[in-house]
């Protein structure tokens, strides 16, 4: 389609032929009032407020609606002549006579110089602009609502005025409605797709969080209108770089690698089963992760420490070792809680005037600079109580004003039981191994310990590598650890993986299994026994052969071989018999 030049209020502008005058005027920042126009919907010319005066190429002057009048070469447009303004005012007053004074109409009236329409205001909040009907049809593609009846009884409704099955509850109609006539309401058994249609953390397309890497938005197909109806794609129209591809989907790719670093991390213990702390039942009992989220400047409260009602807490109890150092849950120490709990205390003191109570078993400030930080916290007026928090209960009526929650504990230094009324309780939940750690471990030939953490090759001499060559561990998947430790281990894992790859060859243990070809009967018993698949069967020679690069010298095959054909080097039958003889002689 070619480009044509039109003049709007004397200003020339080059636009696509057949494009609409209103858009050209908006490009020139000329204000034309409209109520029924929306960028992503075809123009409809329902409100008749965008009237302009044109002079066409034959010199005829007439009034047209700018939203749907196509541009043609030599077109002259005047947007603010007395005739135009009078027409708009007249149209507005006629609209007002049947519509209730919604804010959008009152504002528009003021702009047009009409405070009191001469026929007064009507009562209908719907202005019949048709935005909702068109957005549902053209953008969403659900066609759940439409116009019913004609003339003065024309309304927007669902077919037969009953709840529409076609409605996907996306809320697009409510979002475009200029007067607020359409609202989203909860209805039983159906979930509203978007609570907000604006771009935000709850939108169907959003950046997961502000520091996300890659820092790009992603579409949630569960909520995206396009994936429900095949329509919409408004985001693709908005994106100037044409980055949005609705056809893109997840792919499985096979990558050949020389080494693998497992850094699958930990998961947070869910404190709900620990009923004594009331998590999920009592208000303002939160986990450390939730508190951390609240403290984040990008978090739900913009970094403010607030209670559920939005007010600042007067007192906060921080309960250490929730699920850690607890025989009923995890016997180990989660390592990081003491220090982050102290950090929490510091943050609370910095941001609020709240009293802070730390309920600890032992304070383990073990790292570099940690003890110094602890000493600093002591000077900040934090209450430290040695004794694990036993219970969080609703405070009795008599103590309600001091705080709605009552934390019970034994103060082992003071030697007495205490009940502390607080506004908020933070549970320092244990670090747990990922739920699927065992499965992951099996995939990579890494065993997991009793607690679910991956087992390193040696607790002191091989803390990064695993018993499977080329698989390394980094971070909390190997055990609870803080950031410096995780970073150090990650660096070490990367270095070890690099050194393995750069060398280009693998160093082998001298011990491995060998097959005595003369003795092997080819029974293939060993093939199944080998946990590493190192023994393969040579069909031509009808005997089993050991791949020395895969063999880890466990000797299971040697013990199982019925003909004694497999020798585990350094642990041969002869050597062990000699040992037996030796120690029993």
């Amino acid at each position, binding site marked *: 389609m070619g480009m044509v030049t039109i003049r709007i209020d004397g200003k020339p502008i080059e636009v696509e032929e057949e494009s609409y005058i209103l858009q050209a005027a908006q490009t020139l920042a000329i204000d034309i009032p409209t109520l029924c126009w929306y960028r992503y919907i075809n123009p409809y010319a329902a409100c008749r407020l965008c009237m302009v005066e044109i002079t066409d190429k034959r010199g005829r002057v007439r009034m047209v609606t700018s939203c749907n009048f196509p541009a043609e070469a030599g077109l002259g447009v005047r947007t603010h002549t007395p005739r135009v303004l009078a027409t708009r005012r007249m149209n507005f007053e006629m609209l007002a006579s049947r519509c209730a004074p919604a804010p959008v109409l009152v504002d528009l009236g003021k702009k047009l110089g009409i405070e009191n329409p001469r026929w007064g205001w009507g009562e209908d909040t719907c202005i019949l602009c048709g935005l909702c009907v068109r957005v549902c049809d053209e953008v969403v593609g659900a066609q759940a609502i439409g116009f019913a009846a004609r003339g003065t009884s024309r309304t927007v409704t669902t077919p037969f005025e009953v709840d529409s099955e076609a409605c996907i509850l996306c809320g697009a109609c409510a979002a475009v409605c200029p007067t607020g006539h359409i609202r989203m309401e909860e209805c039983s058994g159906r979930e509203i797709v978007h609570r907000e249609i604006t771009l935000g953390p709850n939108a169907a397309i959003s950046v997961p969080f502000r520091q996300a890497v890659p820092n790009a938005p992603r579409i949630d197909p569960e909520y995206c209108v396009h994936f429900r109806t095949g329509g919409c794609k408004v985001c693709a129209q908005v994106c100037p770089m044409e980055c949005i591809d609705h056809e893109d989907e997840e792919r499985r790719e096979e990558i050949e690698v020389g080494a693998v670093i497992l850094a699958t991390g930990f998961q947070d213990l869910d404190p709900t089963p620990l009923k004594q702390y009331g998590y999920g039942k009592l208000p303002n009992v939160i986990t450390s992760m939730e508190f951390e989220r609240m403290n984040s400047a990008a978090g739900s409260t913009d970094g403010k420490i607030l209670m559920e009602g939005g007010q600042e807490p007067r007192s906060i109890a921080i309960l250490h070792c929730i699920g850690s150092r607890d025989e009923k849950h995890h016997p180990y120490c989660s390592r990081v809680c003491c220090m982050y709990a102290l950090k929490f205390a510091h943050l609370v003191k910095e941001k609020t005037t709240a009293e802070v109570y730390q309920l600890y078993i032992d304070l383990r400030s073990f790292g570099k600079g940690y003890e110094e930080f602890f000493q600093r916290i002591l000077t900040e007026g934090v209450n430290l109580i040695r004794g694990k928090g036993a219970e969080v209960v609703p405070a009795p009526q008599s103590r309600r004003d001091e705080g709605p929650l009552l934390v019970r504990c034994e103060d082992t230094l003071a030697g007495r039981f205490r009940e502390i009324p607080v506004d908020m309780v933070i549970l320092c939940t244990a670090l747990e191994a990922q739920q699927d750690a065992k499965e992951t471990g099996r995939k990579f030939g890494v065993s997991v310990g009793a607690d679910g953490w991956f087992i390193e090759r040696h607790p002191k001499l091989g803390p990064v590598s695993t018993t499977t060559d080329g698989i390394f561990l980094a971070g909390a998947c190997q055990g609870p650890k803080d950031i410096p430790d995780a970073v150090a281990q990650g660096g070490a894992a990367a270095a070890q993986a690099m050194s393995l790859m750069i060398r280009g060859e693998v160093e082998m243990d001298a011990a491995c299994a060998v097959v005595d070809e003369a003795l092997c009967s080819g029974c293939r018993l060993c093939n199944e026994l080998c946990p590493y698949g190192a023994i393969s069967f040579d069909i031509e020679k009808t005997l089993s052969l050991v791949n020395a690069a895969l063999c880890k010298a*466990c000797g299971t095959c040697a*013990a199982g071989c019925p003909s004694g054909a497999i020798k585990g080097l350094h642990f041969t039958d002869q050597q062990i018999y000699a040992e037996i003889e030796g120690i*029993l*002689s």
Partner: protein
Amino acid sequence: MSFEPRLVGFLCNWCSYTGADLAGTARMKYPPNMRVIRVMCSGRVDPNFILEALAHGADGVLVLGCHPGDCHYAEGNYKCRKRLPITKRLVEGMGIEPQRVRLEWVSASEASRFSEVVTEFTEQIRVLGPLKLEDWTFDRAAADAQLEHN
């Protein structure tokens, strides 16, 4: 002089041998009756080794491996767990008390468990008394009956 049993222990290199090592460095006490043979995995313990040890005059054989699921070689201890009961049956068929052969799991960190297991096993064998192989004659009928029974 009381009877001092002579025991042979087959210890897996990764868990039990390390556990025994730890028991040593932790200065834990356990009877000196057991002599240790290091194998890379409890899965390496050929039933022949056990028979050989008993034939050479051992009063009992203890096989120690990693706890199920913790095997350094993924599943070697499972192989051992399958083999040991068969070996015990074999030993029993020879007229030797099956209690003289025992399989236990000891991890690298369980030094105290190691010393407990060794102490207990030693005491058990002490009660059983010395192994007398010359008493054994092959009773074909009994063996057949046993086979039939199984």
